[in-house]
């Protein structure tokens, strides 16, 4: 019997005294690599409201609501987001990007919807006389 199973027995003993490969998550910390594609955030100072990310999103997770006088809101629906990173690739201004956060849980769908950028209306320009 040992002759038949010796490679396996050696592997078993090696595993028994080696490092465990499973961790007791969430009691043990888990490290994420750099570049992990998680929740989407946007930098409001850089965002111009051009809508390229909205057009290119494969899952229709982004929504641009335009108001008056240049006001706009960029809204994310995380339940539709596929974490593909296309918005980050499409943005010419480097505003929208993916972070490493991966737990967007909430109790209702309304709570989940986030306003990424809330750009107020532009100040009316004073006309010089």
């Amino acid at each position, binding site marked *: 019997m040992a002759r*038949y*199973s010796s*490679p*396996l027995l050696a*592997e*078993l003993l090696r*595993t028994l005294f080696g490092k465990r*490969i499973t961790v007791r998550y969430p009691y043990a910390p888990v490290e994420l*690599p*750099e*570049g*992990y*594609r998680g929740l989407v955030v946007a930098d409001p100072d850089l965002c111009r409201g051009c809508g390229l990310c909205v*057009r*290119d*999103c*494969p*899952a229709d997770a982004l929504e641009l609501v335009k108001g008056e006088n240049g006001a706009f809101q960029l809204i994310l629906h995380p339940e539709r987001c*596929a*974490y*593909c*990173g*296309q918005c980050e*690739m*499409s943005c010419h201004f480097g505003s929208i990007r*993916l972070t490493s956060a991966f737990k967007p849980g909430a109790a209702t769908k309304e709570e989940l919807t986030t306003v990424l950028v809330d750009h107020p209306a532009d100040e009316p320009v004073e006309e010089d006389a």
Partner: protein
Amino acid sequence: MDRMTIPIGPQHPLLKEPMSFNVTVEGERVLEATMRLGYVHRGIEKLAERRTYIQVVHLVERICGICSHVHTTTFCDAVESLLGLEVPRRAQYIRALLCELERVHSHLLWLGVLAKNVGFDTVFMYSWRDREIVLDIMEGLSGGRVSHAVNMIGGVRIDLDDEHVRGILERFDTLERQVDRALVLVEHERTLRARTQGVGVLTPEDVRRYCVVGPTARASGVDVDMRRDAPRPPYDELDVNVILHDAGDVWARTLVRTQETRESLRLCRNLLANLPEGPTAARARRRVPAGEAVARSEAPRGEVFYYVRSDGSDTPARLKVRTPTLPTLATLPGQLDGVAFADVPVVLAGVDLCIACADR
């Protein structure tokens, strides 16, 4: 003993994805098996007609979780040939690196599934443990374990610097050692061989009649491998060993896949060592000129074939995907005829099913 019809699926611990078999047994012998598919049909080809090319790249990635990168690579290939775009060599190398890594992870996954179906949980745990290293490498490269989103039309969106390459090569050393030990174990394990030898035999004539491709065909002696037969750079610069066996049973498929895993690891090292300098993407127009294009690749399960027809706008007019698993599934009722009922999981595991691929 009278006949019983045992339903396997759509939900069954044996199946990773829903599909339905009705197996008629008499005692322990299977008399016939009927099959129903379509539980995972999402209409991807139709959905692709309503999305822009940029969006379709992400859509086709979700045809299958295991061979996701190969699908996007092939699609980007087809669109790039319609655009007449020259993809930089560095991008092609990175694409091929991920293709081969995906092959390794797919074969290790398959090995675990076969072992679980045979009741050999230990090999399942070991091969998936080694697969974790591959997934960690892919996560470090692309940011996701299963969906990589690496391809864009014109190239890739990631880049590797030297430190990154060094880190990957270090993990490769561990991976190769562990995978080699696991594969030696599988090749010499008597109970596994006793369960898989002589089961689910496919003759070369059957393979040709059903147009089966991939490791299943190569295990029956039919020599077909897209990496060598329709080489796309960089495969034309690499020397791919095509592995053949002629027994045609599940044991032969096991041997083909284990040896292919070793071969893929060797190819990965080769690709990393010869990574050319240069840009990683070429700028692509959003509107694709009218025309038709065809692209083929070797997915872990065989040849994946894409046909793209464009009408000059920025959405495809027609996308047709032919995945390797659909014809392989068609051979299943024939393979299940006359086997013992306990061999049904072995046969189902042997053809390496991916219903998501088959149903699209």
